[in-house]
């Protein structure tokens, strides 16, 4: 009885959720939005400094979101490496001896680096940007890591932490400096918009890649006791 209930109750709840969601979607779809944001956005695009609207929203109109989002990434990275008690790079289990993978790497890594560069460069005008480029870059690192190439900079140390914080720090710096130049916070001085956005995107790319890679690297575990309050 209890088992059946344990299945049916969540099932009913989920179905109710879907039905209610569906109903409200249908209701919302039937009415016009009172604010037409795309139109507003299109009107301001020429002030944004970039040609791609998504990039404009991310790095100009709603750049505070992006700043906090990078902070979230950095937090995840910090927590991740705080869990890795020692440099886990020497863990032999991680290395793949797969020859296919090894061969793939030779071809893939340069290609992926190229792709990352392209995505970053394209971000201003076309789809693409720091996140995608960062992810590709991180993918590169993952491949190298699986191939057993020691990535020394990922050892929990100063270098790693600099890498984690760099993109975020530059973003923050630009935000504050532009404010000092008399603009509103997180606003760019006129004329400087595009170069600044590109700069931010570049460092962000590296930082994002670094965080993701750090999380990947710190996921494997190793032994370390944790004497502390909870170990009564």
């Amino acid at each position, binding site marked *: 009885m209890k088992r059946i209930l344990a299945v049916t109750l969540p099932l009913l709840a989920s179905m109710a959720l879907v039905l209610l*969601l569906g109903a409200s979607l249908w209701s919302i779809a039937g009415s016009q939005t009172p604010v037409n944001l795309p139109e507003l956005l299109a009107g301001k695009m020429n002030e944004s400094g970039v040609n791609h609207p998504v990039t404009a929203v991310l790095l100009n109109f709603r750049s505070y979101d992006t700043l906090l989002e990078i902070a979230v*990434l950095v937090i995840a990275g910090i927590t991740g490496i705080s869990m890795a008690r020692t440099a886990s790079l020497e863990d032999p289990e991680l290395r793949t001896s797969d020859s296919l993978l090894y061969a793939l790497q030779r071809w893939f890594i340069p290609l992926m680096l190229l792709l990352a560069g392209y995505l970053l460069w394209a971000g201003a005008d076309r789809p693409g940007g720091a996140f995608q480029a960062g992810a590709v870059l991180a993918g590169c690192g993952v491949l190298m890591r699986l191939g057993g190439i020691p990535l020394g900079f990922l050892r929990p140390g100063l270098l790693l932490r600099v890498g984690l914080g760099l993109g975020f720090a530059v973003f923050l710096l630009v935000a504050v400096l532009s404010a000092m130049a008399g603009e509103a916070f997180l606003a760019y001085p006129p004329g400087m918009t595009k170069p600044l956005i590109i700069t931010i995107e570049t460092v962000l790319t590296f930082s994002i890649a670094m965080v993701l890679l750090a999380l990947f690297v710190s996921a494997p575990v190793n032994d370390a006791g944790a004497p502390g309050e909870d170990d009564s």
Partner: protein
Amino acid sequence: MTPSLLYAFAGAGLCGIGMFGFIQLRHLLRKLLAFNLIGSGTFLVLVGLAQHGQGPDAVPQALVLTGIVVSIAATALAIVLIRRYFHLSGHTSLEADDSDSGQGGAE
């Protein structure tokens, strides 16, 4: 009815499926998968609903990009925690072992 709206409905479905899985499944990794399904569903609702009337809208797309990055951060962090938890306790679910610790699991 536009294709966008269809995807929004699909998103609602995904939310429901994910929700069910999230509550029902015990394995932490599976819970995480379910959470990602809810996330995808939510993103589909966000973009699909916003775009059903007036075509592409950059704002929700940007929001979804932010959301994806946030959820990958959370997912990656969760994986790290789950793996370490598994390493220390040998368990893959939260409920399995309130007995061996005598604390922390009281509800």
